[in-house]
């Protein structure tokens, strides 16, 4: 019996009788992080990092059964030692390790190696079997340093002040928005947050400190907004309020902005290459640091990345999952606004 099986409902540990980020209703689920494609409705019991739980309850309902597990604390399920380790993806995001008789699996969920200043930084976990994402598993994806990003945002803000325009940044409500808030607050800009972002902020603020900001509303005067930043979800692009805020520039914040095609397609004025996923080098470093003998590649450029890992002398295999659907996260955010 393999310690982890890839089943129709999701990744399953038969010995512990627990699923990790399942996409169909099950009795027990360990959730790596609260994004909609990893944390879904209908599980009888949820186990997650304490920072994820308020967001999950907010999204899935206050009445869900949850159990919190801190990083580096272990629980045992039928002899399987289970631990959470920081994944660095968003606040509260975790890698799950499952260990039994010398075999140790790490399911990493989504992760990045850079320290974004709000998420607990990624920690490599030595293991025998590593399950990795591959969202950006191509060598063309190479993220700029944090300082470079900060400088770009500073420059953009300065140009907004000069031209007396509002900056509208489209970012996912959970994770990306807080990261942008933090960087933008450092530029001295006032931050306005759109409703979906602010609801998520409230959930996170139980546990982490966030910069000062004001919730956006249509009564705000144009003079207050000029030279400052509104953070909204990608789903609100082109919404009615954007036509009432006066002259503004728009920005997208995503690893996809690395490619000219997607940059142009996104129809925004600025594209910041800021991602919450590991870039090519990040993935390679992570895989190497685990020392795993077998790697399972999920959502993203799965075939290319597993072929590459194989060519590096590590046994790799593609696993089909239901992760990586950005639309689900957008739907979740849209619901927020209704």
């Amino acid at each position, binding site marked *: 019996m393999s310690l982890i099986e890839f089943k129709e409902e999701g990744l399953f540990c038969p010995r512990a009788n627990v699923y990790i980020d399942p996409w169909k209703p099950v009795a027990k689920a360990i959730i790596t992080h609260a994004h909609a494609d990893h944390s879904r409705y209908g599980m009888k019991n949820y186990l997650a990092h304490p920072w994820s739980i308020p967001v999950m309850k907010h999204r899935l309902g206050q009445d869900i059964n949850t159990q919190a597990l801190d990083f580096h604390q272990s629980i045992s399920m039928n002899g399987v030692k289970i631990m959470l380790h920081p994944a660095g993806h968003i606040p509260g995001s975790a890698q799950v390790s499952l260990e039994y008789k010398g075999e140790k699996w790490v399911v990493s969920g989504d992760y990045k190696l850079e320290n974004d200043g709000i998420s607990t930084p990624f920690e490599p976990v030595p293991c025998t079997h590593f399950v990795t994402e591959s969202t950006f598993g191509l*060598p063309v994806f190479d993220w700029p340093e944090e300082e470079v990003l900060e400088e770009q945002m500073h420059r953009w803000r300065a140009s907004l002040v000069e031209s007396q325009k509002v900056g509208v940044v489209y970012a996912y409500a959970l994770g990306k928005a807080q990261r942008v808030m933090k960087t933008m607050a450092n530029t001295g800009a006032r931050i306005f947050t759109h409703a979906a972002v602010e609801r998520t902020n409230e959930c996170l603020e139980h546990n982490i400190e966030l910069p000062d900001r004001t919730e956006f509303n249509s009564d705000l005067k144009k003079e207050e907004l000029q030279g400052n930043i509104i953070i909204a979800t990608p789903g609100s692009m082109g919404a009615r309020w954007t036509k009432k805020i006066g002259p503004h520039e728009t920005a997208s914040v995503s690893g996809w902005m*690395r490619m000219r095609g997607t940059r142009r397609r996104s*129809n925004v004025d600025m594209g910041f290459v800021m991602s919450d996923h590991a870039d090519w080098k990040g993935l390679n470093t992570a895989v190497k640091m685990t020392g795993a003998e077998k790697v399972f590649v999920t959502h993203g450029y799965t075939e290319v990345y597993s072929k590459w890992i194989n060519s590096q002398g590590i046994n790799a295999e593609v696993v089909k999952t239901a992760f990586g659907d950005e639309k689900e996260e957008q739907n979740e955010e849209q619901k927020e606004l209704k």
Partner: protein
Amino acid sequence: MKNFVTLIQQIESQSSSKKRIDALVEFFEKSEPADRLWCIALFTGKRPKRAVKNALLKSWCAELAQLDDWLFEESYHVVGDLAETMALLVPFDGAGGLKSKLNEQIKALLPMKNFNEEEQKEQVLAVWKNSNHFERFVFNKLLTGGWRIGVAKKNLIKALAIFSGQDETAVAHRLMGNWDPSTTTYHELMESDMDENLARPYPFYLAYSLENDLKPEMNLKDWQFEWKWDGIRGQIVKRGGECFVWTRGEELVSEKYPELMELGAHLEDGTVLDGEIVVHDGASVLPFQLLQTRISRKTLPKKLLAQAPVKFIAYDQLEANGEDIRALTLEERRRQLIRTTKKCSSKELLLSESIELKTWQDYEDLRLRSRAFRAEGFMLKRKTSPYEDGRKKGNWWKWKLDPLSIDAVLIYAMRGHGRRANLFTDYTFAVWQGEELVPFAKAYSGLTDAEFKEVDSFVKKNTVDKFGPVRSVKPELVFELAFEGIAHSSRHKSGIALRFPRMARWRKDKTAQEANSLEDLRTLLQLYEQQPSRTMSPKSHLIQLVQVVKADENIDAAELKIIQDYAKKHDLSIEDALNDELPQMEKGDGLKSWYHLLYTCLADGEICPSESASLMEIGVNMGLDVSALRKVIELSHQNGTVPLTDEELNAVLD
């Protein structure tokens, strides 16, 4: 390069035309004349030829990035643009600030094709090392010869008008003709006396398709109706005793049409006519296919001239007695045109007929019979309108025959390029034959960005199988395909080939079961064949594809396919494709020249894998041998811009 790189960056990031124009004006102000000239040249499609073979560039880049070839190719596939892929993969993060000016950089590239590999590599790597990401991208674009970044010609003209203080019409006029940036100067192009260039044509006035809801507001009395002929739009310029024939693609084609030169001899000096070059037997216009036999040849044997005699149907007169009369009303210009045609004793000059009927219904009835006259519909021109330049709405409309259409099921998908990189935007469609879905057409255009995104997400979730870059998907989505023609084809499984298929609508209201059948297509074919058919030959498909590859104004490698679909609709002349780009055409005979043509397409310019696949497909449809084709394509990869010799081709064909 700094100013130019900044300009490109601004153009890329600005969504409004006004900001792009501002950026151009700023560039012109900051730059020296030679840089301005090259910028104008690049944005009007006069890009330098590729200096270094793509295969070499790829290998140097893969070597620097320490990547296997397959991984490089996978990356290229996702990014969809070779210059950008290399800019992303080269592992240097130079501080940037390339010192050389744009014109110096281009002048340095021009002689490179004569260098040996080592020298080329040294020069390329020196730039790669010293540049930052975006500079490298712009440099690579110049290097690979696939320059398709730009602004609409309209906007370039506006910016030049602001910068130079001339009006837009004058600027548009100056940019006309076949000037060469390596032999002319900015001063000669933009500041010299206009009269110095006898041959210079006027910018063509082009029309948009008639919007149906406009009809009720249009008073028939205000409009002149003419046939929209399916030939090559052209201009005859007679000045200083000399005659020049231009096509809409700004190609000088005087030598190809001795009939028109003869016509010119009978025109008065200081005359410019706008019209359509057609094959005409004295009684009526002959099929467009015949005209194509003229386009593809540089030598004109008597037999050909007898088979495909050319005439010029004059639509308009732009210059009379050396005076520019474009500002006069159409009525006034037409009176002048009638005088000119009466005076001219040449039988090769015909006057475009003005069709006067009583009601819209009368026009509609006649329009539906356009094909019988070998026309493709009507042109509507406001009688009080001046002769404008470029494609403008309001005074001229084209009112073409409606395309044919059929509902089909999406069964295969491939990734697009450029702006559509990493999205599944290239589809294969099928119709029912009993319980089986038979593929019959490919289409890449017609959906909105949002729709493409939606289909992309469907494809990713519903992939049944993968064959290389092609994914077969669950047969579920139904689209209405529109097309201009339908013909028998022994090469397609369906037995049918469509001309310019594109997606007219996503039929979300239909299930796959409700799509049309092969029987329905066959019925359409029968109906269509009863009309005097001008179904396009595979040969002309290819010509258009070639032209698209060479097309420039604001075209992205990615959008190539869309243009392929629309080339016809937008009256693109196919002349361009064959004239200067394909010197080998006259050497070979018959099929051989098509191998040359394919080779040239691939060797010169940036062709992505899927594009070479479409070339292959067309080649096969024409009856070329698949393995010979493959070898020709391989040769083009090896040789780069070095022309294919007859010996090489003969070796391949043996």
